[in-house]
């Protein structure tokens, strides 16, 4: 059975059981491998994507629930100031949890351009990082927030326009 959903701005037909978790469709049908399998029950955050701008774990979100909705994956978001800040701060070790964390951080910054440390930690609390890179990741998100706000007053910045094109598809 075919389910049509919007992924990174494009309508995509997915021929699979409508109960199939989005993550498998992204990785195997659409070749979007940036969302990663971690637990299969939506508690580790490695598979996070945006659904209508809200971070949602794709591993336990069935295709049928996404009809008429807009999914953005890390491929649709990239490059994003949060990613730049992660690389500047070398805020990762194995990196497997990072793309999910980037998705949640980007959604947070969309809501709150300059979040407090507490707000960042609270937003990222639904993610697990086993390597122990949390401190650097929190710093990177704070850094991206500051950079993002700076670039608001300097709207020609490349990264800012990239980000707009990445998330503009959600509207």
């Amino acid at each position, binding site marked *: 059975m075919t389910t049509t959903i919007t992924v990174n701005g494009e309508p995509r037909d997915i021929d699979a059981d409508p109960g199939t978790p989005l993550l498998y469709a992204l990785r195997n049908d659409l070749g979007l491998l940036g969302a990663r399998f971690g*637990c299969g029950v939506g508690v580790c955050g490695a598979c996070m994507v945006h659904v209508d701008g809200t971070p949602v774990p794709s591993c336990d979100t069935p295709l049928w629930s996404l009809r008429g909705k807009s999914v953005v994956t890390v491929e649709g978001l990239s490059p994003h100031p949060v990613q730049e800040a992660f690389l500047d701060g070398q805020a990762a070790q194995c990196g497997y949890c990072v793309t999910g964390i980037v998705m949640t951080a980007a959604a947070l910054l969309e809501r709150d351009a300059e979040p407090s440390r507490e707000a960042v930690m609270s937003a990222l609390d639904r993610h697990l990082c086993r390597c122990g890179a949390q401190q650097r990741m929190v710093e990177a998100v704070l850094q991206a927030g500051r950079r993002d706000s700076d670039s608001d007053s300097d709207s020609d910045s490349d990264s800012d326009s990239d980000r707009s094109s990445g998330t503009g598809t959600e509207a």
Partner: protein
Amino acid sequence: MAALPKDLAANPILSRWITVHRDGTVDLRVGKVELGQGILTALAQIAADELGVGLASVRMRAAGPDGPDEGVTAGSMSVTDAGAAVRVAAANVRALFAGRPFAEHADEVDLDVPADPDVPLNAAGALVGRDVPRLDLPDKVYGRPRYLQDMRLPGQLFGRVIRPPSRGAALVSVDYPTDLTVVRDGSFLGVIGPDEAVVVRAAEALRAASVWREHDSLPDENDLGKFLRDGPHEILAVADDGETPPPDDATLTAIYSRPFLAHASIAPSCGIARWTADDHVEVWSHSQGVYPLGRAIAGALGLDPGNVEVRHVEGAGCYGHNAADDAAFDAVLLARAVPGVPVQVLWSRQDELSWAPFASAMTADVIATLGADGRISSWRYDVFSQGHLARPGYAGVPGLLAATTLAAPADYPAAVDPSAASGHGTMRNAVPGYDVPRRRITGHRLLETPIRSSAMRALGAFLNVFAIESFLDEAAERAGRDALAYRLEHLTDPRGRRVLETAAEAAGWGRSLPEGTGLGIGYARYKGRGGYCAVVARVAADADVRVERLTIAVDVGRVINPDGVRNQIEGGAVQATSWTVRERVRFDRRQVTSVDWLSYPILRFSEVPSVDVTLVESPGDPSAGAGEAAQGPTAAAVGNAVAAAIGVRVRDLPITTDAVVAAIDRMA
């Protein structure tokens, strides 16, 4: 004539390591693998400096059959061993080109020659000692396919294994009609198909349709001390000064313990295999050692080791012997049913937490005497543990999980321990780094167990350092001394004293703190010969127990990448904090019950301490690894800080809020 570095002596032909291309770029093949620790970047820095080229000219090639055999990537030895080998190999290549440009002379210079150990080394490089960004991180941060889990070979099928419900369970029957390929060999059961989601559902249906014969085999998880002490044991006598304790000195005793711990990587383990002929298989794995894995697979299936080609592809964080090798062998077994077709196997979260090898539970008894001056006058230490080494090929068996469930099952004896030369397992850091007389230090390795244990970061050092450093605090308190001053009274090694003093000063040791907040210190030199690390933990205990801050000083000799060292120390300390205050593998008498992130919780973002790392420079000393230096000292610092904060000592890990409350109740 100088000797070649160990790994280069084992693989002396330069072309095994290095290829120079006509465009002037260089391929560097190493046997050590990227586990999230940044080793490929550090080795690229070393190579580029010795070759006299920029970092962009060096391409790091993952370990595989074309590259050198460097055993396993373990024990914090990669910079020491591979770094030394790469440096001399690269210096040889540079010497063979003798100043001629790489690009123009790539075809003329013969690298099929053995390395010369006496080649002059380049003293001043531009890259070693600098914060070079990790080469692999851009792919990982931007979500480009890079992990084994992301690999999609042409025609690749997906496989899942239905593991037994409990240890030793035997598959009696399975009745589930399906169009997919079902593989059964004894109690090994798996399913293969083209659609991953369909295969996952089929695996669940097969699980529901399978009947197993089970029995209770596990020890009482609430009395692991008895289980570990009952034996039978191998006795590991590592120090005996042969003197009896001074009879008039005060005796102090304590018992410490830790439970079984899980690797709990964020990604479940993965393996890919393709049989290219009846007797030839290609394997892709995030194993710590592609050659040892290939030999173990060959041994398990009676193949020529040369016909099992294992290539490394990065996985998620690896903290020791996890299920990577098992998943590779699962793929080999499943792919045998579909000759010529690659099969990717991914473990489930539940299997990852319950079937991967665990870090052994351990318990240690310390009996020491204190002289009239308060100093330690004798030291008796007995530690009880399962072994810490059950890697592929250990003890002459495959060491691969699925091999034990086949119709002709392989034996899987209790884990052994690494040799003294490799830094021990149970006895790693069992000998205190302090000046302590009249020592008798003995290990007791359990020889029979139903629980599979193997290497996890720091091995026995985590519990041994926790025990020794907790005891130092208890002795200092008895002697009426400050914990830092007491350590320094017993420590002459200047590098050890420097990290202790540096961490203490940075943490504001001796300053007054709010009620319910305490500082604790922990120190060790990893393996007694690796990196020095001192940790000061700040813990607040009111409604719950929170590790607020870790202040760390570390000396790992010649530093290749300072930020890489900081990152490893930070991560090691945060992970060790999680082990110390949260983690415990749970089981009943039949099966492991901590099978998800709710039943095996690890520290979350809002719970991790802030970490401040100072690198104490010691550039004249050889490089030591950083990945395992902080774990033991962190556990000890946290335990000592809890005692300082509330006056109660918890000697059994994990130090959860419940454990602290129970300890307070026992005191009252």
